[in-house]
């Protein structure tokens, strides 16, 4: 099952443009930080995939994830962290915080598409 809508959470406009080109087959919504991302989730109930950066002002990615999972209102939401924080402990921390996958920047576009396809297949099987 394809994502109905994708939320891009990153303070980089360059990355927003990147996702716009890479994921043109999906409707996208954008946020510049975790706080805006929470607002977007409230505004768009059909978002089912979040591409999440870590280092952002106001509310970073891990803080957003903690608040999202604590809230419990969207247990179905798939979150993929896409970050420059690439050490093993960063990946472990992100997955422990509730992310479904972790991709390190810079990345190849196939990595994102592969993760989306795997998560879609998982969702279909469930």
């Amino acid at each position, binding site marked *: 099952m394809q994502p109905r809508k994708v939320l891009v959470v990153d303070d*980089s406009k360059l990355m927003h*443009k*990147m996702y716009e080109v890479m994921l043109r087959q999906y409707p996208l919504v954008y946020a510049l930080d975790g706080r805006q991302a929470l607002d977007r989730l409230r505004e768009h109930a059909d978002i089912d995939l979040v591409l999440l950066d870590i280092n952002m002002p106001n509310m970073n990615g891990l803080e957003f994830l903690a608040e999202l999972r604590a809230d419990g209102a969207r247990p179905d939401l798939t979150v993929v962290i896409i970050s*420059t924080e690439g050490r093993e402990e960063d990946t472990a921390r992100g997955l422990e915080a509730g992310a479904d996958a972790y991709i390190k*920047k810079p990345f190849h576009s196939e990595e994102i598409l592969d993760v989306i396809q795997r998560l879609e297949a998982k969702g279909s099987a469930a």
Partner: protein
Amino acid sequence: MGLDLVSELRATLERAGELVRVVETNLRGASEGSEGASSDERVAELERRLATAESDVKELASRLVDSEHQGGRLMNLYVATYQLHATLDPAEVQATIAEIAINLLGAHQFVLLLRRDEEGEGYEIALLEGMYDGVIPIYDGETYRGGDPMVDQTLKDGVLRLGPTGESQALAAVPLRVQNDIVGALVVLKLLDHKPILRAEDRDLLDLLSAHAASAMFAARLFATKDRKLRTLESLVKLARGE
């Protein structure tokens, strides 16, 4: 065009896979019902065709992966160019250069040097990123006055250089050009922990930065200067009119 090639390769791959399945089925049928030398020849022929088809499938799969990587690299270049020229705000152009270096190149520590208008005044340190454990002395302050031989040579002759070398800790010195004029350099000092070295595919991005970063910055600064002058003139006109 890249996407068409990828689609074509995928379709060819599927046809090759189908051919493999047909040959396998024929082979199985030939083995089960075979009698005599003619059947052995047929089996041998089918096995040869199967081996050829499998080899073709592997080659096509490899070409498909290469095409996808190439498509990804082209996308990076397109987005970087688009974003550099999408604004006439000098601060936003500078931020875009930093975002390209961090998100697409994987740079952790880097410096953006821009030539000062006054002769002999060194280079303005327009951007300095990632020096959380202390600034390298030659990049400390507002002005770079030389000190890294590789960087100095690049600023002089406009040649992109990769390091580190015996004399320089810089990983890359990327000249920034406006037409044929060298107006500065992007110096990459350190990459992200999980990216050990610059790859061959990063060269295209460095070349792009060399060609486009400076022209985008130049256009933005020129616009900002003209815009300020225009606003000043408009204010004077209003004052003269008693508005």
